[in-house]
């Protein structure tokens, strides 16, 4: 038996908070449990059959007051615990200025990660310490879950939709990455390693990586490859929505709904264009799900977010 884990490093900004909440709830739970245990044992011994003890009934008024008393006390304790630990810690952290955005694509049964400069990894992720990281995650097939116990963080990764995880690693080292949502045959092998490095170490590591295209550049290439511009460019004769400044804009749909063109909307419009037809346009675009995988769609959306390019297409 190699090794034996009895503790878990607190390697992110919120790990300490989670452990503190755990310790606090544990104290409350233990206080209740030990009180009950002592009472049960004392009663079981003192009032065992044949022991000389009073069997007189309790006054009705007293038992009613006890009953109301502990109902109110328990309710108060429950509300207090909720307010303290959920009210205070339930919401995600605010964006930091030098945030590092990393894209994650999950598929049966591997994790693919891509750094902004284009470096890619499989079942691994290198990140600098003490810098806020935003993981933008999507799945190519079923639901997976990105779980790093040392960070006390977990987030399901869904097909088509994007989910995010924002955190700041605070400790150097190598930590487990697990898939925590059952995803089929090799679910338990869908694991990886998170390596937290110094800022200088991260730069050096990035430098050594074979530099693929950045996500935006890759998206631009795909945009050309699929011929998106043939319809969507400003010069096109085809009547299709133009994409300059589309990200973040409010789009009016045929059925009168107004939606904000966020990442989820853009993705859905690539994979299932007929779901949300823009007002005034014909439903002529084919669904690109069969040509573009989840990583391609991520890249195209990353590219769309940068439009319009200076002096260029589309």
């Amino acid at each position, binding site marked *: 038996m190699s*090794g034996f884990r009895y503790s878990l490093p607190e390697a992110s900004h919120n790990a300490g908070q989670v452990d503190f909440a755990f310790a606090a709830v544990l104290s409350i739970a233990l206080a209740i*449990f030990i009180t*009950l245990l002592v009472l049960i044992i004392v009663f079981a011994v003192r*009032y065992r059959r044949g022991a000389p003890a009073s069997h007189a009934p309790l006054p009705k008024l007293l038992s009613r007051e006890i*009953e109301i008393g502990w109902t109110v006390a328990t309710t108060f304790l429950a509300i207090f615990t909720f307010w303290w630990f959920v009210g205070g810690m*339930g919401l995600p952290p605010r964006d930091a200025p030098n945030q590092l955005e990393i894209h994650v694509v999950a598929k049966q049964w591997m994790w693919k990660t891509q750094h902004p400069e284009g470096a890619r990894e499989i079942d691994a992720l290198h990140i600098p310490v003490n810098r806020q990281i935003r993981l933008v995650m999507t799945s190519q097939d079923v639901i997976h879950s990105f779980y790093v116990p040392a960070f006390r*963080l977990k987030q399901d990764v869904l097909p088509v939709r994007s989910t995010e995880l924002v955190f700041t690693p605070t400790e150097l080292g190598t930590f487990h990455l697990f898939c*925590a949502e059952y995803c089929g045959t090799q*679910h338990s092998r869908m694991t990886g390693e998170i390596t937290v490095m110094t800022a200088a170490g991260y730069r050096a590591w990035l430098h050594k990586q074979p530099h693929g295209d950045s996500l935006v550049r890759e998206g631009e290439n795909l945009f050309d490859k699929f011929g998106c511009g043939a319809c969507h460019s400003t010069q096109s004769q085809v009547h299709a929505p133009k994409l300059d400044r589309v990200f973040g804009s409010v789009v009016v749909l045929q059925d009168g709904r107004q939606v904000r063109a966020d990442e989820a909307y853009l993705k859905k419009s690539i994979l299932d264009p007929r*779901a949300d037809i823009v007002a005034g346009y014909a439903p002529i675009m084919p669904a690109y799900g069969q040509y573009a995988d989840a990583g391609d769609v991520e890249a195209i959306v990353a590219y769309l977010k940068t439009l319009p390019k200076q002096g260029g297409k589309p």
Partner: protein
Amino acid sequence: MSDTTFVPAPPLDYLHDGATLKSWLLTTDHKRIAILFGLSITFFFFIGAVAISIVRLELLTPAGDLVSDDTYNKMFTIHGIVMVWFFLIPSIPATFGNFLLPLMIGAKDLAFPRINLLSWYLYIGGAAFTVLTLILGGVDTGWTFYTPYSTMFSNSSVLTAAMGIFVVGFSSVLTGVNFIATTHMLRAPGMTWFRMPLFVWAMYATSLVMVLATPVLAMTLLLIMAERWFDLPIFDASRGGDPLLFQHLFWFYSHPAVYIMVLPAMGVASEILTCFARRRLFGYSFMVYALVAIAVIGFFVWGHHMFVSGQSAYANVVFSFLSFMVAVPSAIKVFNWTATLYRGSISFDAPMLYIFGFMGLFTIGGLTGLFLATVPIDIHVTDTYFVVAHFHYIMVGGSVSAFFGALHFWWPKITGKLYPERLARFAAITMFVGFNLTFFPQFVMGYLGMPRRYHVYPPEFQVYHVLSTCGAAVLGVAYILPLFYLIWSFRNGARASSNPWNAKGLEWQTPSPPPHENFLTPPIVEQPYDYQPADIAGGRDAR
């Protein structure tokens, strides 16, 4: 005691009233149907147990060296499906509920005896699909059938498995309708709502949940079948569907289903505790309100299974709050049971030992629920062994302990025979020890990050898995023991009087085993749990 001498009554008891196979398979007697259910769920209990034994053996080592990953996945799936739908949900209601509900309220049978028989045949129908699933090679989706895995990716027998659960669901709905109607219509004169034993209240609350929640499960399973069969994109996000819709529908049933499993156990605990403490139930009316409150609030907490699913942060906060609220009535019940012991005259026969076990383990299960209701903690421990340990403490530590408590407590009434007390106490204690050895290490490894449903795992968790597997072996012995001594008791046990525990419910006012018509003379209804301090004979000496 004078009232315990057995006078042979002219009508035959229900066990001997007809000896042919046909007289059993076409019976409308609620007591015989209870026995049919009892035998069926015992069969499935052992199927579920064999499946999980393979899982626990595999987990002795970190590498996947005993079975293949697909086999492993199929084993934990079949364990979940069988234990939830073919053991736990029908366990106490369809056996003890069926047997006792009419007896406890002084009725001759359930309101719809033939529908009751239909419930059993539906169970067998669902069971047939489940056995077919096994023959066809099993199913690997986990008992939760999460989409799109179950609809678009799994290559196993999802359709037959879903069909089995779909069919068995109708069995619970019909049982629920039957119990509700019976409780409303067939109470004996004098049996007012607030004189009903807590077990009857528990059956009533459980039935409401069964009737209201199970149809949602049926629809959800139909949607799974529609997507798999006809390729309707209901949960396929790339074609406009939504995989999270499935989780909402599934947990809208499956969280209340937890209460289907545990409310009956609470009813059993109240019956046994009062009898062996010779004490009125502390806070009877609060116990009733707590049962109903749990059943109602239980419908509004499903989102706490989805804190990391991608649902909105605000939904998380709301579901967290409601989950804390459902803890309150559960806590009240434990306080009341504890207070019932005060100034009692407690004996430690096997049923009482099981209920002591139930109280301790249910309390641990409930308190660890607080951790899971706390969103930041849940984000860390959900889908780890912490959750596995939590729900086993509720469902096995709580419900199964109560099931065995009930089995021993009402065994003399059901069979007319006494069971061997020393062996039974030994089994009860073994079960408690084995249970804790199995599941307590899972809390620890869960908090340390061990994900659930893992066929291979990092070696640093091996110690905990080895402890857990050893515990499972002890637990296995504790489950097999009663099988043997109860069969022995049924054949060779000493005859039981009509009321060997000197207990107060109406079911003890009729011979053991009861005649087909239940009561020879109309039972006399008194205040519930009217145990007198001086009235402490009972237990072994009174037999």
